[in-house]
C-alpha cells in the first residue's frame, strides 16, 4: 500500500503539465477496453472481411470492392432478400405497435393486481429457446396437429393451411418479438404522470384528445425504443422463415448464413452483413432524427 501511494504521488509530482486524464475516463477505462475488444473488434473484423479478396481469409491484408460489385451486379437477385427482410421488419413493427399498445396500457392502468401476473405470462416464453417455441407452433399448425386435429375432431373439415407460407413467417415474428415491443412501451406509458391526464380532463379535453395530446407524446420514448428494438431484431430474423415458413421466403440473414457456410465465401457474407448494418442503422437513425427526441423527452 505504501508503495502504491508513493508511486501515485510520484506520478502527480513529476508530470504536473502532462495530459490530464479525468477520473471519469480512468474509471471507465476497463469498460472501454472491454467494449473495444468485445463489441468493436468483431465489427471491425466483419468490415475488414467485407473488403477482402472473395473466397479468401485475407482480412486486413487485402482491399477490394469486388464483394460489393457482386452484390450490386444488376443480375444478382440478393436485393429481394434485403427487401423481404426490411418489409417483414416494418410490418412487424407496425403490427406490434398496434397489438402491444392496448396490452401495455392495460398492464399499467387496468389490470391492477393482475398486472404482475400478466407480465410474467409475457416474460415466461423468453426463458425457452426461440427455436423450441417455433417448433411448438409447427406442432400446433401442422396437418393433423393440434389445430387441424382438434377442428377435425369437432366435425370441421380441418385447419387452415398456414404452415410453410409467408404468412406463417409474419405470425412467428409477431409472436417472438412481442415482448421486445411490449415492455419498453409499458415503461413509456408508466412515464406519463396521472396528474397531467387529470389536469387535461379538468380543462375539458375529451378522451381522444387526452390520448393524442398527452398520453401518446409522453409515452413516445418507450414506444420508440420498442419500435427500434423490434425493427433491428426483425431485420436480422432467420428462424421464423426457416422453421415456420419452410423457407417460402429467403431473408437476408439466410443469404449471409449460406455465404459463410455452403458457399465458403466469408468476404461476401461480411459484405452482405455490412450492408445490412448500414441499411438498418441508417433507417433507424433517420427515423429517430425526424422524430425530434428532445421534444418527445420533454427537454424543451
Amino acid at each position, binding site marked *: 500500500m*505504501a*508503495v502504491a501511494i*508513493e508511486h501515485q504521488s510520484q506520478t502527480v509530482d513529476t508530470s504536473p503539465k502532462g495530459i490530464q486524464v479525468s477520473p471519469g475516463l480512468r474509471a471507465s477505462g476497463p469498460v472501454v477496453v472491454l467494449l473495444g475488444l468485445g463489441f468493436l473488434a468483431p465489427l471491425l473484423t466483419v468490415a475488414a472481411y467485407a473488403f477482402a479478396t472473395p*473466397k479468401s*481469409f485475407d482480412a486486413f491484408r487485402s482491399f477490394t470492392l469486388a464483394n460489393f460489385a457482386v452484390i450490386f451486379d444488376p443480375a*444478382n*437477385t*440478393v436485393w*429481394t*432478400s434485403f427487401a*423481404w427482410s426490411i418489409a417483414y421488419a416494418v410490418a412487424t413493427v407496425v403490427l406490434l405497435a398496434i397489438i402491444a399498445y392496448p396490452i401495455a396500457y392495460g398492464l399499467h392502468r387496468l389490470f391492477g393486481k393482475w398486472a404482475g401476473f400478466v407480465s410474467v405470462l409475457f416474460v415466461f416464453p423468453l426463458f425457452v429457446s426461440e427455436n423450441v417455441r417455433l*417448433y411448438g407452433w*409447427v*406442432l400446433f399448425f*401442422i*396437418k*393433423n*396437429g393440434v389445430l387441424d386435429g382438434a377442428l377435425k375432431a369437432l366435425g370441421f373439415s380441418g385447419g387452415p393451411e398456414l*404452415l*410453410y407460407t*409467408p404468412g406463417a413467417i409474419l405470425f412467428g415474428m409477431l409472436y417472438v418479438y412481442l415482448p421486445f415491443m411490449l415492455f419498453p412501451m409499458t415503461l413509456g406509458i408508466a412515464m406519463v404522470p396521472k396528474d397531467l391526464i387529470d389536469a387535461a380532463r379538468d380543462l375539458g379535453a375529451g378522451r381522444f384528445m387526452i390520448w393524442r395530446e398527452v398520453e401518446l407524446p409522453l409515452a413516445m420514448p418507450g414506444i420508440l425504443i420498442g419500435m427500434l428494438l423490434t425493427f433491428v431484431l426483425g431485420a436480422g430474423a432467420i428462424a421464423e422463415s*426457416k*422453421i415456420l415458413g*419452410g*423457407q*417460402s*421466403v*429467403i431473408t437476408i440473414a439466410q*443469404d449471409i448464413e*449460406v455465404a*459463410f*457456410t*455452403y*458457399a*465458403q*465465401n*466469408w468476404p461476401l457474407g461480411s459484405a452482405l452483413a455490412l450492408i445490412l448494418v448500414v441499411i438498418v442503422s441508417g433507417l433507424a437513425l433517420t427515423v429517430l432524427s425526424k422524430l425530434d427526441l428532445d421534444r418527445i423527452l420533454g427537454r424543451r
Partner: protein
Amino acid sequence: MNLTRRNFMQAVGAAAVAGPMATAGRALAAGREKELNILCWEGYNSAQVLDPFRSSKGATVKAESLTNDPTMINRLRAGETRIWDLINVNNPWARKVMAPAGLIKPLPKAEFEPYFDTMLPQFKSPYRWAMSDDGKDLLGMAQRFGPYSFVVNTDKVSRATAEEQGWALFADPALAGKYGILESDDWNVFGIFMVAGINPFKEHTDAEMKLFSETAEKVFKGAKMVGDIASLNQALVSGEIDLHLTGGTYSVSPARADGYLNLRAVTPLKGPIDGKGGISWIEITSTVNNPDLSPLATEFLKYVQQPEVAHTVAFAEGTFNPVSQMGNKKCFDLFTKDELEAIQWDSLEEEMARSAEYDIVPDYEKALDLMTAAKRLRG
C-alpha cells in the same frame, strides 16, 4: 543490489505474476497429453461416445458438431489447424482437398491398416477414400456411411415406383406441393443435377448449367417446404409432404426408429452418374495437421474401432447409420432387429451398389449461386 522496501515489493510482485505464468506455460506444454479437440458431424460429439473415453483417459475432450463439410474445411483453412486434432468429414475432402492443402497429416499405416481388414468388404485395404492420391499415405479411418438420394412415404409413393422413376419424381407436376427439400445446400446441388439428368461430379457446359438453373427454379418453386431433418421427418409423418430430396438413411433413420417404417430412403435404379442413380457418403476421420497434435487423436481413432463403441457411434443421438465395423461379427451382433430395420440393412448393400460415391463438384460455386437465386424465386 541494495534491497530496499520498494525493489523488494517489485520483486515480490514480479514473482507473483511470473509464478502462475510459468505454471500455465508448463500446463500448456503438457496439457495436450490430456486434451483432445474434435471437429465432426453430429454423433461423435455425443456423451455416449465421448464419456467412456474421457473417463478412461482422464482427458478433456471437446467436440464441435457441424452439419456441412464446407464449413468444417473452412475452419481449418482459416487457421484453426492449431485448435483441432481430429476432423470428421465426407469421403472426398481428405484425399482431394485437405491432404493436398496440408490441412491433415497421415496416420501410421502399420497401426491402422489392419482395422480395414475387419470392416465390411467394400472397405478392405487399401480403401480408396482413406488413401492419398498416390496411394502411399493413409489419410483417415472410415466408419459411418450410407446412401443419400431421397426419402418417400411408401404409403403414398411405393418403393418400386420411386426406384423406377427416380429423381424424375421431383419434376412431376402431379407431385408439386407434395414434396420437401432438405436445407443441405451442398447435397441439393447434387440432387438438382440428378433431377436434371446430369452427372454432378464433372465440369459442366453452359447448356448443362442453364438446364440446372431451370430445374432448380422448377424444383424449388414446386416444393411445399425447405427445412432441416427434424422438420422434414415431422412433415412426412403428419402427411404435409409425401417425399423429400435430398435424404437417406442418415435423415430418415430417426423416424424409422420411432416406428414409422413406411418412411424409407430410396436409391433410384438408374441415373446419370455412369448409369448409377444414387449418391452415397462415407465419413473419413483424419488427424489435423496441428503443430501440437494431441497424442489422444490416434488413441481416439482406435477407440471408435472397438465393436461396442462402433455400435454406439452408429446409434448416437441425432441420426442412426450403418458403420464399416459391421463387417466384424462381434460388432454386427450388437445390432438389434429394430436397429437394423431403422438403418434399412435389408437393402443397404444393393443401394450402396446403385450409388456413386460423394465427390467434389468442380463448378460447385457457380451451381450454388444459381440454386440460391432459384430459391429466392419461391417468395
